[in-house]
Every structure is written in C-alpha cells, then in structure tokens.
C-alpha cells in the first residue's frame, strides 16, 4: 500500500518588502545582533589584552616569586598555569638551606598529583616518599644553588603547593591551572 504524502496549502507567511517582494528580513533582530557583536568584539579585545598581560598564564602577570623569611628558599613560578602545558618552576636555595654539601627539599603531594612534575634538573641524589609528599636530596657545590622542576598540570583548578627545607619555614604558593 502506498504511503499518503502529507501536504499543506501554501500561505503567504514570509514578510514582504514594499508589499511586493517576500524576503523575510528581520531588521529588529539585526539591530540587536549588531549591538551584540559590538559588545562581543569589545569582550574579545579585552580577552586578548588580558591574555597578553598574562591573566591566563604564560605572561607578565602570571609570573610570581615567593621567598622564605629565613632566606632558605626563593621560588620563581607561574601563579597561573595552563592545563597540560609545560612550564618551569625554579627554586634557589640560600646558604642556610645547605648542609654537608647537600640540600633537602620536601614537596607536598598536591605538587606531584596536580601539577604533573615531569622532570627535575639536576637529578636528585635521593627521592624519599613519606610525610604526605616527597623529599628530594640534591648535591650542592655552589651557593646559591638552584633546582628546576618541569611541570605539566594534569587538571584545571586551584592548587596549593607545599615546599619546605626540613627544619626551616614552609611556603605555600597557590597556583591556578587554566582549562
């Protein structure tokens, strides 16, 4: 059995210009659309300026530095990181952090779990897991000594890093990871 085709009479539903040409133009919508696009372009421009300044990471405003009052550590990092994007955190140790040609650094778990520590330069002599984090031991021949960590955040969010030279003041820089 053949299917019955659905039909509907044609009606003059498309609005006309000069009462003779069916165009269906909606100028009221178009005016609103132009206002919307003007605002959107301003927003896009502001977004790019913010990006150039480093509001979303990888720029001037994203760079941060934090020192311990006792001079054991000076940490240069990016307070705004980007998800799955490589960055460097540099830690300089003062003379008071060095004992017997070695320096120890304890880092909390959040650093390892969320910021994706990919590599450490130089390689530590020893890495010990415990006390809610990991303790690295580095050999030191000159002062100030510096260690660099290659990061690649694993997920977006706000994280607190916990860094401490055993027996000295702990610092807790906050890092926001952009999606």
């Amino acid at each position, binding site marked *: 059995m053949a299917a019955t085709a659905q039909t509907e009479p044609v009606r003059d539903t498309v609005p006309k210009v000069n009462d003779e040409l069916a165009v269906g*133009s909606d100028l009221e919508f*178009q005016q609103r659309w132009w206002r919307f696009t003007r605002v959107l*372009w301003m927003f896009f421009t502001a977004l790019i300026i913010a990006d150039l300044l480093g509001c979303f990471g990888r720029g001037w405003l994203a760079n941060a530095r934090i020192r311990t009052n006792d001079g054991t550590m000076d940490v240069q990092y990016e307070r705004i990181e980007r998800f799955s994007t490589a960055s460097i955190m540099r830690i300089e140790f003062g003379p008071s952090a060095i004992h017997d040609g070695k320096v120890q650094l304890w880092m909390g778990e959040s650093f390892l779990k969320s910021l994706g520590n990919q590599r450490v330069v130089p390689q530590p002599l020893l890495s010990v897991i415990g006390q809610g984090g990991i303790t690295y031991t580095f050999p030191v021949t000159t002062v100030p000594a510096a260690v660099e960590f290659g990061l690649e955040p694993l997920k977006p969010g706000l994280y607190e890093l916990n860094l401490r030279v055993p027996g000295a003041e702990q610092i807790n820089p906050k890092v926001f990871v952009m999606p």
Partner: protein
Amino acid sequence: MSTVIHAIIGYFFLLVAVRVLSRRPGAQMTPFEFVIIFLMGGVIILTTVGDDRSETNSICAVITVGLMHRLVSWLAVRFRFFGNFVEGTPLVVLKDGQWQKDIMRRMRLEDMDVMAAARTTGVRTLDKIKYAILERNGAISIINTDK
C-alpha cells in the same frame, strides 16, 4: 569525556566566532577568509582531541560535532530567534534604486559585491537593479527593474 566537552565548547565558540565575523561566510568569502575559517577549525581541533590520537577519540569528536550540528539545526527551525542567531536574517541592501547605506556598511559590503552578483544574472548596470538582497547563506540575490 573531555573530548566530548571540548568538542561541544569548540562547536559553540566556532559558531559564534564565524557569525560575528560579520561578512558572512559562504558565497561572499574571499579565499583568505576561507583560510581564516579553516585556521580557526584547525586550532579548535588541537584542544578537542588533545594528545589522545586514538580512533576512538576521533570518532567520538566527529560524532559529537555531528550531533551538535543536528541539534542546532533543529533548534534553528523550531525557534525563529535561534534561527536568526545562528543563520542570520536576509537583508535588503538595495531597494528601489537606493543603497541601504547603514546595512552595507555594517555588513562590509561594497557596490562591487552587488554588481558581481548582478552580472551572474545578466544585469549589466547597477541602475537596472530594483532589489538586492543579502541572503542568509551569504549569496546576493538580484531582482532587476524589468521583473
């Protein structure tokens, strides 16, 4: 999971970005504007698939974009305002021998663009055009004075 979310965000961002380029893509695009559209798509692909180059991930991304497009097309037909938002509205750029200057300026159209469309219909001069309409797909329709 993240691929699907990235594909949805990327789809909507591209939808808005391409729409606000003002001069509509399609029939009115220059070769360079085509390159820009492809460039935008290429950049969105990077974040959509991330470092997961598996067949599974690619297929999920393609299906997500396909479903999004189907949904948006359905909404565009179902709701007039949404249809205008994603596809625009036809605009009369020349009426009764008068340029609609404001529309021309805002759509970044020139008389040359209208004349180019007119020539394809056999119209030789601008004064033979009664109406020129910038259609939703970016084409310019010409109604000449003889019709």
